[in-house]
């Protein structure tokens, strides 16, 4: 190792040390725990056996939970993309001297606790909430609509939470497109829509992809929103982990479920990185 490398490692060592201590070590510990045995008395005994893994792998219930989580995460991601792209486009194209202010406003809700922001949806979507009260007052409906404690309210809560991540990724991508390319397309006879479809959209795809990947991973691993806004039909994998570890005190099974979720999402990130590149995400946060 030359002197320059040694200095680089020395500078990196606090970050690497923190990662090793606070991320890698706990994950490894969880992985080790997944092989332990839980006795009938509720004690966890160190062991190396695959009983917990086989029990989970052969239990349809857990796969149903994983599918439920991924399904809601996919719908959430699509909703974020549908709402986030036009917003990001607006932000990137608007001629406004203080664009930073708009971006600041985008992240303003982050100043309030995530739980409070999620709870606020109860007052918006509930039977006596703002939406139902307004619709009943206007005579549009007679009975309150059932908008709370179901998949719809979970998706609303997740979109609200994740939208800024989508917008900022797409915005960075759109902002980086050379405007001369769009002008050239128009000069060569493309309509505005054709220019968007043939030039702008393809060039902004890496940002859109990065936003989708980030939203999906965060939504699939989300726990608080489904817990607060979900109803009896909301089946979310992180909730199963919570129940295994907290309610049943079955930590080895909870560890297996945690590792499965980690591997599933890790696989997704790996596939994304193979075809797109994680650098698009880093770029968004570097701005």
């Amino acid at each position, binding site marked *: 190792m030359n002197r320059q490398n040694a200095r680089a490692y020395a500078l990196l060592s606090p970050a690497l040390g923190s990662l090793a201590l606070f991320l890698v070590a706990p994950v490894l510990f969880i992985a080790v725990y997944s092989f332990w045995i839980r006795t*009938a*008395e*509720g*004690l966890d005994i160190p062991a190396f056996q695959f009983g917990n893994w086989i029990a989970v792998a052969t239990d349809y*219930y857990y796969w*149903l*939970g994983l599918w439920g989580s991924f399904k809601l995460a996919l719908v959430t991601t699509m909703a974020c993309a549908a709402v986030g792209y036009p917003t990001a486009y607006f932000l990137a194209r608007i001629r406004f001297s203080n664009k930073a202010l708009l971006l600041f406003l985008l992240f303003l809700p982050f100043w309030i606790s995530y739980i409070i922001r999620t709870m606020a949806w*109860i*007052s918006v979507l*509930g*039977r*006596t909430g703002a939406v139902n009260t307004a619709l009943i007052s206007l005579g549009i409906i007679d009975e309150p609509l*059932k908008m*709370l*404690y179901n998949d719809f309210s979970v998706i609303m809560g997740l979109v609200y939470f994740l939208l800024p991540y989508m917008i900022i990724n797409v915005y960075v991508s759109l902002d980086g497109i050379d405007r001369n390319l769009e002008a050239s397309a128009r000069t060569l006879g493309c309509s505005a829509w054709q220019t968007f479809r043939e030039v702008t959209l393809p060039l902004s795809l890496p940002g859109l992809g990065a936003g989708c990947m980030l939203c999906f991973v965060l939504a699939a691993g989300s726990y608080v929103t489904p*817990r607060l806004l979900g*109803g*009896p*039909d909301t*089946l979310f994998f992180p*909730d*199963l982990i919570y*129940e295994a*570890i*907290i*309610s*049943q*005190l079955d930590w080895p099974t909870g560890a297996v479920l945690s590792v499965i979720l980690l591997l599933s999402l890790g696989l997704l990130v790996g596939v994304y990185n193979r075809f797109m590149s994680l650098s698009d995400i880093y770029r968004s946060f570097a701005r």
Partner: protein
Amino acid sequence: MTFGDDKKYERLLEAYGNGDISRRQLMGFLTVAAAAVGVVGGPFGKLTRDALAAVEQVRFDGWGGIVSEAFRNNAFPAFTEKTGVKVVEGEFGDTEEFLALVKAAQPGEYNTFLVSGAYDYYRFYKPGLAAPLNEANMPNLQLLLPATLEAFRKESEGKLYAVPFDYGTTGIAYNRKYISDDEAKAGAKILWDEKYKGKMALYDSFQTRAWMGSLYTGQDPQGVTDQAAMWDACRTQRDLVVKYWTSGQEFIDLMSKEEVILSDGWSGRVAYLQQNGHDIGFIDTKDAGFAWLEGLMVLAGSPMNECEQLINLCIEPKISIAIAEGQNYPPSLDPNKVELSEKVKSLPGFDPTGKFENFVWESAQYWFTNQDAYKKQWERISKGA
């Protein structure tokens, strides 16, 4: 001066403060103790750890909301004033969550907490997480209802691991605007009435669900013979439910905003709703619910003297009644020995006789034996599996 009791460090400090020993002597004592640990370890280790670790605070964990507020306003300031020991508060949503935290913690990290019911008492006692109490340190125990003390003692081979503090009931809460008192007399069966589909919430607890399911199917809740029928009833009921709530605060929120008009609930939380102007009825007869006893438990590894002092203060009539009024659960004080306030006497679930003849108490052994199977089954049913 000896090093043989828990208060050695305080005594040293006191002696130093009074001028009986010099600063050099004080440091000398501590240095010798530290050296003893280094050389010998073992028995001296404990002595020195105790000597060095003066108790400055104890941790108290409760249910949060109005329950914690009642302790915070009435007991903790008096305790700190009397002992100089600060009370650090924590809260938990349910006992499962707290049990998981205690299991993962080092002994002594958590100290005193509000244990709910004989079943929860047993869950901490059985794996050795709780510490036996020295009853001689708590003279106010004599003011408590003997039946409540016995309820805990019998679960732990005659020794007391928690002091009965209050009692409450789980029953059925209903909004009187939509459901009459007569209709509610149907007991647990009303929770299966199709009329209330989409207007009902239930407590997300395997115990409460199994209890109500067995009542609905005409079985003894603590001696179920046909489990399949009980769980089938819960499965059917699931289609009627808007939300399975997980905390008392969530229950209050759902009922007060009329998100639901019917739910099972806890007597104290129903009292809170009534006091705040909501016309909520409550039925907790034998065919609609059960009773439980809350206690103040001390966890193993805690500073026992301080925790016992705190508990003794909490069961002092003046403080205990004030907390009862604050948290809306009747205290375990014996009405024949202590004059209770009118507010306490009017609380839902209050038994003026103190004999609890009309109550059905939970059986710790039954729930402990069945907990693993029941929990797993209920969690799957609640998720539609």
